[in-house]
């Protein structure tokens, strides 16, 4: 895709357009989003196998409404590989120690069955500062 060099206005427009679509992507009919942590340590822990199994499992069930994306490390190195699953009307969940077997369970139980997978839920390590303007830390507490 050959992109023309942007002007200030074009950059602002692009940012506005993309602002909401990153967290919940409803473009192209993909309502579910799975993010695989693919930093060096995640990959060393097996994130590539997790990703391959995930893609194969989604194909097997013909789940075309799932967008698979990658990110860097989350900071949960002790629990890698990690993935985040966002299904509409369900809480966003981070899973840790996601082996190929666990990712199959996540596809079958969470994405298809709409229930969470036991024993693998972890927590995002910190709030997102983009919407933490009134965080107590910056209010001098």
């Amino acid at each position, binding site marked *: 895709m050959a992109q023309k*060099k942007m002007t200030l206005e074009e950059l602002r427009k692009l940012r506005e357009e993309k602002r909401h679509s990153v967290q919940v992507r409803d473009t192209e009919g993909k309502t579910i989003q799975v993010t695989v942590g693919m930093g060096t340590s995640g990959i060393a822990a097996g994130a590539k196998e997790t990703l391959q199994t995930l893609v194969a499992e989604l194909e097997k069930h013909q789940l075309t409404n799932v967008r698979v994306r990658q990110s860097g490390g989350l900071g949960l190195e002790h629990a890698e590989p990690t993935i985040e699953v966002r299904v509409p009307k369900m809480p966003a969940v981070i899973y840790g120690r996601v082996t190929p077997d666990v990712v199959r369970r996540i596809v079958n139980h969470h994405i298809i069955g709409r229930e969470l997978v036991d024993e693998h839920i972890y927590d995002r390590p910190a709030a997102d500062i983009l919407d933490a303007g009134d965080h107590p830390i910056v209010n001098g507490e």
Partner: protein
Amino acid sequence: MPYASFCLVCRGTACESSKADTLYDEIKQHVAANGLNDQVQVLRTGCFGFCEQGPIVKVLPDEAFYVQVVPEDAEELVHEHLLKGRPVERLIYREPGVHALGNIDQISFYQKQFRVALRNCGFIDPEIIEEYIAREGYVALEKVLFEMSPDDVIRELEISGLRGRGGGGYLTWKKWKFTKDAQSDQKYIVLNADEGDPGAYMDRSMLEGDPHSMIEAMAIAGYTVGADTGYVYVRAEYPLAIKRLRTAIAQAEEYGLLGDNILGSDFSFRIEIRLGAGAFVCGEETGLLLSIQGERGMPVQRPPYPAVKGLWGKPTVINNVETMANVPVIIMRGGAWFAKIGTETSKGTKVFALTGKVRNSGLIEVPMGIKLREIVYNIGGGIPGDKKFKAVQSGGPSGGMISYENLDTEIDFETLTALGSMMGSGGLIVMDEDDSMVDVARFYLDFTVDESCGKCVPCRVGGRQILHLLEKIAKGEGTMEDIQRIEEIGRTMKETSLCGLGKTAPNPALSALRYFRDEFHEKIPAEVREDAV
């Protein structure tokens, strides 16, 4: 029929010991007894890292966060919250002055972490520029190019109090001002991504998880000091980081965020990547600059500092990855916002690589001034096997030990130095009662002896002598005089070495002696020990 609620019972190893399993069973039973099996899923989770307040129960999607829940609370929790939808106030965690329920950002405060430099890591796909742009990416560059003068940028950095995160802790605004004020036809920006401390990987994570923040910060620095070229010096051992950075640079060029007349302004800026071959000394700024020039990476005497006479003799701003990661946020939210975080002398947050004998190892970002105890026990979840804490080694091969007595020190640049350690790049290696301090000191000296460039005598000869003495002591052949020798040589190295590597190389040995002298004495044969007394 999908579940309406999810009840998560923490099952970290620490919580297990405080009856989390019984609690889980109790909650399940009460859920069944109240006919909620179809509506509430009860689950066990990994550690939330807040173990001193455990066991922890979290109810989603309400985001209710319950602490110190005992099995006897299960009935009330299920009946009130899950059946009637009324949160059990008495069990909800409250940070003083914070209303926990219904606001995820404030609830997350229990985690003690606050992510500024790591703000995008784990959120965005680092290979897609739009994802960075969507999360306030390049807003700061926009702002400086069209609304701020170079002096405005420097003033904002001054208000923020940002100090270099690479080790020395020098004020960033001063570096930038020196370079801005220097008269020259050519100036440079250099990003120091030559992360070499054993156990530290914050730079790698930031480059891999959020490469565009580096490009944006370097362009801001270029605009501020009047440089049109930037170099990223990154070690060749980080292939994924290099690949993502290359992709990011190509995308930024394509979108007109690097190159000529950025966003239609008068400002032009380019970035090139230079690979280091994994020599620790090339993380030292003068050695690094020589390496970029294609010469052997050996430190040279300062002053002149690179800010005035740097790359090819031209004024050069050289900053570490984490330092740069803070810059766009400071510009966007203002220096005053940043200065609210941290201590009197050390503003903002610090990224630490928490490793060693700790349950939840990982990359953490915490406000300056946090207590080491909070890091080890709250975030780290304590020591596996409930062994006794012995020390934390901070600052890598340049740093030292922090012992049990100092667990409650509020850590910042100054307090760590006062303890005989240093901030360094931010490695924190936790050690338990089984670890030998003589061995730890030996490991680091072995590393620095290997990495010394050999140019100055104190470092080349002194380091090897200390290592030799440590090996002798470890073998049980040492004498009391050997211990004194280590301290003498160490002092000389600190005072007379040419660069930071040699000046700080004796720290691990000196601080091990300062806090764990007995362990060295125990290694010395009894007959020799008594002779000396």
